[in-house]
């Protein structure tokens, strides 16, 4: 049977296979056909090859002229390839130049290895030194932070100890005038003869000015000067009370701003005053 003698149905199956548009039933039919007549594979290949000829009819277009070199560069072995090897192999095995060349190559190789190794060691040492410096800086910073925290803790413990152990009077304060937003509390400690102020929005003062603390006590006809202070970064402020009378419960306490050189006989600008005790 020649190929032209094949039933037209078979050619339909071959063409449908090459085009990829066989139905499942046709696929099964073709499979049975090929199994029964393996020689039909050749005809099937002819259909596939005929379809694959289509691009030959395209108008030929040339890619970029450098594409060839790009492809060849991509497949070229690394330029570090051992090109000296064929030259060495071409020299008689036991000739003197061979040993000189071999010795030289080995020496050069050893020096190269040592050089590379030395460079790596230097780089490693430099990196380690830099890392050590950074670690030392971090450690110093951490130590400073710890010292600061310890100082704050000491101060807080001192305050707490004083508060626990002393007779105390506590006053709530509010700002007035230019410092209307200021607020805080002040504690006078009888046993310690000192006062502790916790204030907010109490600004620092010029070097020639100072805050002064005054108390309205029964034993004095006028406001009693009870010490002065300068605020420090919202930390509790402590100062010594100049008189035992300052530790007695007061009807009111005041804070003024005064020149450092001003007399303590009278106060300057009023900036805070105590609030009446609740109840």
């Amino acid at each position: 049977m020649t190929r032209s003698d094949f039933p037209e149905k078979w050619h339909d199956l071959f063409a449908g296979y090459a085009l990829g548009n066989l139905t499942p039933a046709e696929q099964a039919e073709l499979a049975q056909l090929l199994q029964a007549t393996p020689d039909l594979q050749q005809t099937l290949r002819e259909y596939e090859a005929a379809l694959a000829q289509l691009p030959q009819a395209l108008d030929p277009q040339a890619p970029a002229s450098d594409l060839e070199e790009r492809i060849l560069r991509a497949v070229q072995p690394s330029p570090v390839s051992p090109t000296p090897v064929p030259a060495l192999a071409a020299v008689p095995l036991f000739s003197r130049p061979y040993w000189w060349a071999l010795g030289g190559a080995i020496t050069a190789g050893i020096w190269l290895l040592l050089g590379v190794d030395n460079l790596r060691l230097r780089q490693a040492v430099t990196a380690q030194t830099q890392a050590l410096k950074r670690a030392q800086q971090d450690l110093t910073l951490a130590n400073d932070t710890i010292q600061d925290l310890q100082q704050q803790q000491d101060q807080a413990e001192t305050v707490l100890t004083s508060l626990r152990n002393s007779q105390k009077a506590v006053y709530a304060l509010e700002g007035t005038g230019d410092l209307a937003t200021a607020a805080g509390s002040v504690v006078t400690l009888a046993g310690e003869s000192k006062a502790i102020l916790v204030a907010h929005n109490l600004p620092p003062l010029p070097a020639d000015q100072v805050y002064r603390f005054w108390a309205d006590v029964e034993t004095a006809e006028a406001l009693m000067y009870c010490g002065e202070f300068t605020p420090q970064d919202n930390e509790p402020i402590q100062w010594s009370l100049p008189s035992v009378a300052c530790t007695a419960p007061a009807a009111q306490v005041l804070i003024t701003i005064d020149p450092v050189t001003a007399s303590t006989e009278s106060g300057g600008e009023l900036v805070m005053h105590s609030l009446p005790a609740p109840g």
Partner: protein
Amino acid sequence: MHSKPETLAPDCLQTATDRDLLTAIQQGQVEALREIYRRYERLVYSLACKVLKTPEEAEDLTQEIFLKLWQSPNYNPDRGTLSTYLCLITRSRAIDRLRSQGARYRLVQRWHHTHPDRSKANPPLEQASLGEQAHRVRAALADLAPAEQEILEIAYYEGLSQSQIAQRLEIPLGTVKTRSRQALKKLRRLLQDLT
């Protein structure tokens, strides 16, 4: 003990057969790849351009095809001509790129499975110059009815399904199938001596 394979001399490259060049490529002879590239760059690039539409994509695919030939030359000269193989894998990969998702055409696999024995050292297609071959294929296509030529080219270059082709051409699905098969049967008859 087997002897070391001989490499092709540079002045023999241009006259070497595709089979010899591919053997040299398998031995790592870069100049053999250069010769293969010069023989088929236009065919591969033109097909890639036809399917992918943009020169950049086509160039990228052309590079991929020849690098693939170098890195893992799955092509077996006994199973068909190199130009046919290159067209198959170029079209397959180009359509894969068009369909970033979806079923992958299995033309390459089919090629390996259904071309088990082609031992002729110099098949007619390989002997024919590409110019002559192009002339034959153009003439064969010209013998088809315009509608047959159109449907064959859409099916081949665009990788559309039968229903997509029917929608595009506004013809019944059955007509797509009948017409495309009829066209391929004619083409195969006209190019029988080339295939």
